[in-house]
């Protein structure tokens, strides 16, 4: 920290550099500005298109079959589907991710299992989501878990909100584990020892001291995970069934009939409504993409705020 401030204070200008070095610095500036320009272009373009094509009625009317953009309704099912998937996915990923991080940092015995677990988490982070989706079709098409999706005469359909959320939670898991671990690791040893000294068990220390104090990191991981879940398309296309409306299962009680049925999300809607998809309604695709981008922006902004606040508050050593 000290060195950085000194360096910033006494910056050596580039005037004395050789030409090659100065060209290099110019490339730095150009690429930096290019990154900013791309980001601004994406945001501005989608905002302009989104505001032009998004009508409030689209948010509350489900998709209908029709040939023109005016006949085909909106994407309320997709919007609700995104929310369902986000809530269900994160409610699996959050407890599991925190538990794995706690085990890795606080327990971590035998050491070989800890190494294997670390590699597993990193491998899961690197696995393409399309492969996760294919694996999901195998799991959820087996008759043992037929109650999680549509089942007709012993043949399990294997596409449902349960299936998609379970697989999407794997997408969010590595982010939550990494972020929680970072938080737990930043708590110094003496905090734990103080808790043990007053007779708390390890489990109670974790529950009462460690987890509350790394809440900001857990929240950051959760936001990032949510962003990934909301933005994922491959798993949705494969595991939620290729519909544009909810397809509830008959004969099940209220929330379950929808959750066991197929559905759609915003990402799937954008994919299908783009010119390469089956619907080909670019205007609606823009509108849905705008809503999706807003969600991701809000989630990212929230993660940023939480992260910054955590840095400001959370200093154990001082």
């Amino acid at each position: 920290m000290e060195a950085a401030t000194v360096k910033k204070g006494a910056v050596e200008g580039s005037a004395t550099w050789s030409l090659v070095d100065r060209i290099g610095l110019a490339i730095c500036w150009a690429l930096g500005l290019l990154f900013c320009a791309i980001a601004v272009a994406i945001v501005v373009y989608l905002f302009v298109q989104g505001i032009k094509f998004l009508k409030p009625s689209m948010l509350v009317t489900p998709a209908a079959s029709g040939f023109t953009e005016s006949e085909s309704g909106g994407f309320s099912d997709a919007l609700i589907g995104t929310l369902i998937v986000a809530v269900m996915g994160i409610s699996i990923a959050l407890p599991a991710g925190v538990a794995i991080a706690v085990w890795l940092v606080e327990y971590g015995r035998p050491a070989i299992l800890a190494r294997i677990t670390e590699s597993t988490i990193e491998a899961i982070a690197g696995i393409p989501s399309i492969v996760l989706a294919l694996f999901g079709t195998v799991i959820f098409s087996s008759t043992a878990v037929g109650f999680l999706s549509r089942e007709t005469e012993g043949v399990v359909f294997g596409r449902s909100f349960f299936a998609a959320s379970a697989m999407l939670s794997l997408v969010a898991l590595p982010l939550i584990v990494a972020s929680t671990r970072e938080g737990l690791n930043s708590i110094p040893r003496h905090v734990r020892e103080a808790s043990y000294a007053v007779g708390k068990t390890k489990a109670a220390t974790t529950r009462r001291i460690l987890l509350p104090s790394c809440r900001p990191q857990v929240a950051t991981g959760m936001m990032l995970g949510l962003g990934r879940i909301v933005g994922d398309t491959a798993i949705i296309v494969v595991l939620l069934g290729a519909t544009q409306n909810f397809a509830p299962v008959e004969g099940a009680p209220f929330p379950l009939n929808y959750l066991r049925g197929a559905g759609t999300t915003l990402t799937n809607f954008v994919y299908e409504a783009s010119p390469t998809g089956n619907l080909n309604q670019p205007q609606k695709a823009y509108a849905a993409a705008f809503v999706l981008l807003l969600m991701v922006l809000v989630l990212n902004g929230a993660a940023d705020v939480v992260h910054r606040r955590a840095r400001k508050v959370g200093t154990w050593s001082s």
Partner: protein
Amino acid sequence: MEEELTPEYGPKWSDQRVERMLGALVCFVVGLLLAMIIVVFIKGWPSFAHNGLSWFGPGGDVDDQLNAIFLSGQSGAEYVYTFHAWPLIWSTLLITGGAVLIALFSALFVAVFIVEFAPDWMSNILQPVVRFLASVPSVIYGLLGVLVLVPFIGNNLISEPQKASVAGVISLTGYSLLAAVTVLTIMIAPLMVSIFSDGLRSVKPGWLEGSLALGVNRWRTTWKIAVRSARPAIVAGTVLAVARAIGESVMLAMLSGSVGFAPNPADGLIFIYEPSRPLAPTIIKNIDQLSSPPGSATLFSIAAVLLFSAATFSLAGSVARRAMRKYGAA
């Protein structure tokens, strides 16, 4: 705080019990990954078994082969498995390689810029920008590519004589290697920037100060000392970006053109305008065929190749990161 001291965690939450429960969860996740690897390979095995090593080789038209496979599954006649995936693999290599090379170059410069040279206001803008670019869903990149970039390439960059020159083989519409590589670069560069700049930040300041004290200017110091000692971070970031790029399916399904065609660089620069289709989009485009045995075996064999290569790359990346930690650079 008084009641906090009472032993509220009785035998139900004893340490051994909690440890065992958490351990069981961890074992479950590890088991899940193993099961995934095994299941994907077993499901894909018939395709590998029928084709042997020629699965990876060229021969015939991939799209015709895929059609034959899917038709044989529907008609109930003898299953066909013949599949030579070379055009798809070649397309994956070209798109991934191109995007990673461009992204490596630009991400390195941007990371150096953020860490060393940008004024405070500039790096305060750039860091959120990089995070934003990394978090935009791939389907949005795909949509913008389809509606903005592809028409631009098709109408403005590809000239009529160029279209005519390959008209007998393939039609150039703008869905091309160029579009795919451009958008993929934008998608993976932010990931690389964030890992690179973590690495650059953790270079010991004493090393840089030593170099500066010898009269080396800041630019040379950064490239000769900081970038070199952050090499493990650069390797790790690149490798993770490769893994991400290999697995990208949705955006490439929208932009790459969805033709099983192998663009040939020997044809001259025109090859960057030619459409193709990498491995991952092949799965998502043909996902309806999952119900027929030969179709599902073919799709799972593609998934097995993707899984193997992506897992290898991400493990290599984590090994590089571990090396980085060992040398005190992270």
